[in-house]
């Protein structure tokens, strides 16, 4: 058994941590948070040069041919530094969708450009009045043209293309479609959100041309697999962010004096920080297990993904809200960075559906196939 990342993977992580620690501080996050910018273009350019978007793309499509484990260690650092860039939309979701469901031709058309950072993509699954998690999709495709409204869509105003879930008007199921966001019939706009450093938006579609991605009617199956993978990568971001919040709390309460002693010396604060640590360690262990399941395409992936997500969401909530609490009044100010982590934790917790969705997904995996239960 070896439940640890390799030395090479750890090296990638250390490099990423050093780079982001230096270049992606709260000041860069705030540049996006406090403006209408779609992302931090300078940082994103450097991330491209470091090859991060290419990490898990096979070499034959212009990628680095590394795997999910490498992506996981990067995700943890991205979460720690709150990188304000289209990582989850483009790298964890859109790129993966094409890898997973694209034809050879589609892969050749899109993956090399994604790997080189020439374009970014996003996914448009959610709708306000239909729940993708219950198999509901209202946006429709007829004769190769798509119409309807998708909201919220991460990085909607930045991405070059979107992978859209839509219903073929004739069919009783739904499929995924590739949509060029500069095409006629696409109107996109930003929407305000809890974490403007990872902007959300909406797509209003009127007879915009689309191309099928994957088999007709296979939308649900592909999305299911995509969400599992993305849940694990997001769990690493959540763990990284939660750990950064814990470190902030540790540093602040050690230096802050009340009643003649550091507030960290009060047991109430020690227990608070210990609880944060425990939640983070459980989440980290579950994220590692998820990384293994994802990298080996294990049959346990659905359970591992839901487990990683449920505990990472809990840990991030706990750590980011109690970090504010540990800072006292300072934690409630705009000026202090506590709220950046708190906002990001909300964003990540909701992006692929909230706790109810993921707890259900988890419990689905625990239901025995055959019923030989005792009756009470």
């Amino acid at each position, binding site marked *: 058994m070896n439940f640890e990342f390799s030395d090479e993977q750890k090296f990638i992580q250390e490099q990423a941590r050093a780079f982001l620690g230096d270049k992606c501080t709260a000041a860069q996050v705030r540049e996006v948070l406090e403006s209408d910018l779609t992302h931090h273009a300078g940082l994103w350019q450097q991330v491209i040069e470091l090859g991060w978007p290419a990490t898990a793309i096979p070499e034959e499509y212009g990628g680095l041919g590394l795997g999910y484990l490498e992506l996981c260690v990067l995700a943890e650092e991205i979460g720690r530094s709150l990188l304000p860039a289209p990582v989850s939309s483009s790298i964890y979701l859109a790129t993966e969708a094409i890898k997973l469901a694209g034809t050879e031709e589609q892969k050749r058309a899109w993956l090399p450009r994604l790997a080189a950072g020439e374009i970014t993509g996003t996914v448009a699954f959610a709708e306000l009045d239909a729940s993708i998690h219950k198999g*509901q999709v209202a946006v429709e495709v007829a004769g190769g043209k798509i119409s309807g409204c998708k909201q919220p869509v991460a990085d909607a105003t930045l991405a070059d293309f979107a992978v859209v879930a839509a219903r073929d008007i004739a069919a009783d199921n739904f499929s995924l479609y590739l949509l060029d966001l500069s095409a006629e019939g696409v109107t996109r706009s930003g929407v305000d959100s*809890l974490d403007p450093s990872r902007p959300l938006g909406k797509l209003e579609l009127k007879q915009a041309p689309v191309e099928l991605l994957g088999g007709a009617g296979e939308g649900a199956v592909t999305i299911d697999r995509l969400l599992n993978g993305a849940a694990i990568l997001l769990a690493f971001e959540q763990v990284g962010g939660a750990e950064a919040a814990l470190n902030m709390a540790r540093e602040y309460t050690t230096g802050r004096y009340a*009643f003649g002693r550091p507030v960290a010396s009060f047991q109430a604060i020690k227990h608070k920080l210990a609880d944060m640590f425990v939640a983070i360690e459980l989440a980290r262990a579950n994220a590692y297990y998820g990384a293994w399941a994802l990298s080996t395409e294990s049959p346990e992936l659905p359970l591992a993904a839901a487990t990683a997500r449920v505990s990472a969401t809990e840990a991030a909530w706990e750590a980011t809200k109690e970090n504010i609490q540990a800072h*006292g009044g300072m934690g*409630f100010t*705009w000026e202090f960075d506590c709220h950046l982590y708190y906002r990001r934790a*909300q964003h990540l917790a909701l992006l692929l559906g*909230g706790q109810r969705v993921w707890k259900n997904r988890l419990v689905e995996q625990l239901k025995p196939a055959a019923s030989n239960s005792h009756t009470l």
Partner: protein
Amino acid sequence: MDFNDSKEQAEFRAEVRAWLELNANRRADEVQIMRGQEGGYERAKAWYKKVADAGYACLAWPKEYGGAGLSQIHQVIWSQEVADFDTADGYFVIGIGNCGPAVQAFAPEEVKRDLLPKMASAEHVWCQLFSEPAAGSDVAGLRTRAEFDGDKWLLNGQKIWTSGAQHSDYGVVLTRTDPGVSKYRGLTLFMIDLKQPGVEVKPIKQMDGGRHFNEVFFNDAVVPDAYRLGEVGGGWGGALHVLMNERMAISGVQPNGFAQFLHFCQHTEVDGERVIDDPVVADRLASWYARDAGLRNANWRMLTAIAGGGVPGAEASLGKLVGAVMNQEIANFSVDYYNEAGAIMDDTVNVLEGHFQRSVLFSPGIRLAGGTDEIMRNIIAEQVLGLPQEPRVDKGIPFNEIPTGS
């Protein structure tokens, strides 16, 4: 036990209701929703003047101080009735609820007759200037100096987190008059006129984007000796008086999120199903209902004690603790319920015009304001349960010898 109004109380309730029907508008929203508060201050002042002119301001205060000379129960009846109407008086809670009682208890008679009626009618708005950059939970560790200068006091130093200071005319300010004695004994409490050159107010931006609280700087700010509340060196007793009344004042108005959550559960459908029919929601709803009811009923018990001439004890801390924590949990749960769309902040998209999204961002402040969760637990443990204090390094030595970490 009897929850019915007495004949006299029922008459008063009918009178109040009739007056409100004529003079205020019923609330359009079925529950109170957090919104941006543009123009709210002017509206609140105008409303309160109307209330005062009609004789309904500060019902339990003596008439000579601008009150109606009635009882605390009358005040409760008023609060219950006014809750159905679209009115705003949140700006005045700190003055009337926290500062007013201390002024009544400690100020010289002529000062009371001069200042209290204007506080009661909200012509003057007041704030509470206790916390400092280096003294929040440990407010007795404050450093703002007050020095006697011939015939007046001169204040120098800085306060922080002062809610409403930007709207305030006066404040109750806790200062250090003797750094050479133990921290609790070197404090003196004053009233201060904030509209003077020695006072500078700078709003602080909160994590939710609002600006309710402020930094307040004193630079030789002048305070007449007649504005001293209690003895020189006796400020801690006065401060406790203010804090005790604060707990009572906020126990009625502090949001705990429940009313909005109940409304959401009862009146929202997701996928054609009422939210309240979802078993996961039902489980939470029942727990939160029981906590909310517990708070309400505990508040009744407290009011009964007060009506009988008692003072709110340290038990009042539990309302602050329970309500603030549950408020944040409810906000998070409700936002999560909407999955991806929960992250959107758009009044037209979100249920209750984005109330829960705003609450996610504001609720952390409520767990801090008026004493943090941790301090509330310490108060309950030490003052209610009588548990021993942790060893104290700041007691029995002069203030200026207490470790500060810098």
